């Protein structure tokens, strides 16, 4: 098992196949402030500001 992660105890083989999920860039960290609103009505500070577009074909 090629060691990507150094630990004192053995790890499951599954962890050998760990992949990069995403890089935590400042853009991602700040997306919370940019793309989401605080909403009392929805009782969250994570209400999406923009609705994702839906292809017309999907509306049929």
């Amino acid at each position: 098992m090629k060691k990507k992660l150094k630990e004192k105890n053995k790890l499951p083989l599954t962890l050998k196949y760990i992949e990069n999920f995403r890089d935590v860039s400042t853009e991602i960290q700040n997306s919370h402030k940019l793309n989401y609103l605080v909403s009392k009505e929805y009782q969250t500070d994570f209400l999406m500001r923009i609705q994702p577009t839906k292809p017309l074909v999907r509306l049929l």
Partner: protein
Amino acid sequence: MILILSTNQETTTNEVVKWLKALGKAFIRIHEDELFEIKVYQNRIFLQSQRNRFFIEDITSVWYRRGGLQFMRKEYDNPSINAYMNETQYWLEDYVIKMLETKKHINKQSNSHLNKLLVLEQAKKAGLKVPEYYLAENTDQLIVNKTITKSIAENIILKSVGSFSEGILYTSLIKEKERENFFITFFQEMIEKDFEVRAFYLHGKIWATAIFSQNDKKTQLDHRKYNHEIPNRNVRYNLPKEVKEKTHTLMQQLDINCGSIDFIKNKNDFYFLEINPVGQFLGLSSICNYLLEKEIAEYL
């Protein structure tokens, strides 16, 4: 009054709330970081946090999405009084949680986490086809390029590990044998798929989507490795009645009335993979026009 147990930053909850508002249904949303105190007013139990205050008897239905009710526990100086009061408080908390679960509900806090291994055993008992699986500490018996491994744990995204700021454990094909032993690992026979089926189950009803992930090398083993350039084709799909009935039996045995269920279609067989009671379904709901968020809001 509807009680929603969720997390603050949870998009699916927002979409269901949108429908609750449209349907004129009142709701209370509880976040993961809220701490409740159990109180009594004129013999009626109520819960109070920094954000919310409500009587248990006023709750008509409960949706357990994520997070859960958390309680403030008082501590006492005398160790045996402390142990006694700890137990007393535990039973009160248990009473509150179980009382809420006796109401009309979608999933429960007390069994929201599933043991993947036991689910597979139960699925076989329910008559579903399950790819052969086993646990091992070495690759001696393993057939290379025909076996996959995946996480036993629910949480597959790990922060700050190795060179990754966020690493993920997808389903992976084993391409070589290992010389050394490792920690107990889950292995499963790789099934060649015609396509994948992701089904959403709610109280006996199933909405399914066929995901054509087999032709793209990136998504061949795990469709969550999304190809954003050329996305997989996803279409509405009707599972055979027999598979639906067996899935319903399984969900009843597990005492879960809502969840996302993964299957693989291989020739005439549907192989059951796993259930995620708190899985994401908005994407498929949108693509297939299933309006699952509305179904949830209407059920509550």
